[in-house]
């Protein structure tokens, strides 16, 4: 798998949901998903699951970028995620960007924020723990 955070690094799930690489800030990918039927929950709003999927994808993208920077190869496996839904996701594009709070030898702790028009008012945040396995083990 490509480790540089480009759209080739998206999982089949993320591609299928319509998640795209919107850009990059300080080497950290910003992911986006347009408002389509695949992400809709109650009418004209994002489904909480779709927002969660975007947050997770942005978290993994941030982690892959950090691993690439350190020249580390790793198999990533989810340990857990806690999502806080702050306000309803409306019928427009959502963005998300993650931050590697801690990258250890065996696991990583990430925080992720999702927003729409106003970045200072996130629609959801997440904390994730990811198992960072050595592919040779």
């Amino acid at each position: 798998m490509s480790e540089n955070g480009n759209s080739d690094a998206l999982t089949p799930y993320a591609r299928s949901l319509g998640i795209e690489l919107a850009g990059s800030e300080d080497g950290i990918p910003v992911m986006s998903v347009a408002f389509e039927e695949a992400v809709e929950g109650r009418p004209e709003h994002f489904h909480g699951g779709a927002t969660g999927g975007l947050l997770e994808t942005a978290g993994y993208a941030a982690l892959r970028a950090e691993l690439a920077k350190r020249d580390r190869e790793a198999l990533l496996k989810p340990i857990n995620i806690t999502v806080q839904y702050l306000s309803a996701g409306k019928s427009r594009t959502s963005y998300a960007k993650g931050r590697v709070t801690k990258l250890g030898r065996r696991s990583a702790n990430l925080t992720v924020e999702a927003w729409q028009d106003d970045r200072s008012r996130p629609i959801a945040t997440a904390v994730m723990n990811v198992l960072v396995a050595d592919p040779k083990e």
Partner: protein
Amino acid sequence: MTDKTAFDPKTATPFLTSRGHSGWLGLQYSDHGDDWVELELPWREDLLGEDGQRVLASGPILSLMDMASGLAIWKAMNRFEPIATLDLRVDYVRPAREGSPVFGRSQCYRVTRSAAFVRGLAHDGDASDPVAHIQAVFMKIGQSADKRELPGE
């Protein structure tokens, strides 16, 4: 059914999952009790996570549990009312088996005037050997513009 206000997850699920994110995932009704609902997420190649691992991504499990939790809350309240997820935690305890559907079972153990509390698990055939555990809090969002049509309404 004689009680027209009763919420029946079996008849409501096809309406709620006919379109949108749940329809895209193909969520189906599986089972329910007084305060719990189980939905099925069929296996799909295009929902895989990390390349080379042949494992279902974690995102669809989160969506499955979110939806099963909503239905469990409506079942526990015995009526449909707009709710929104406030906080959802998922612990992924093991990968789901390749090719297997995943079942999401959520139980609403407490409803207050403004909030509903749920806990649940996802499994791939044996509920005693889950793939994930979840805990979540939903908020009632009052008389907002949820215009979904449900049978009996």
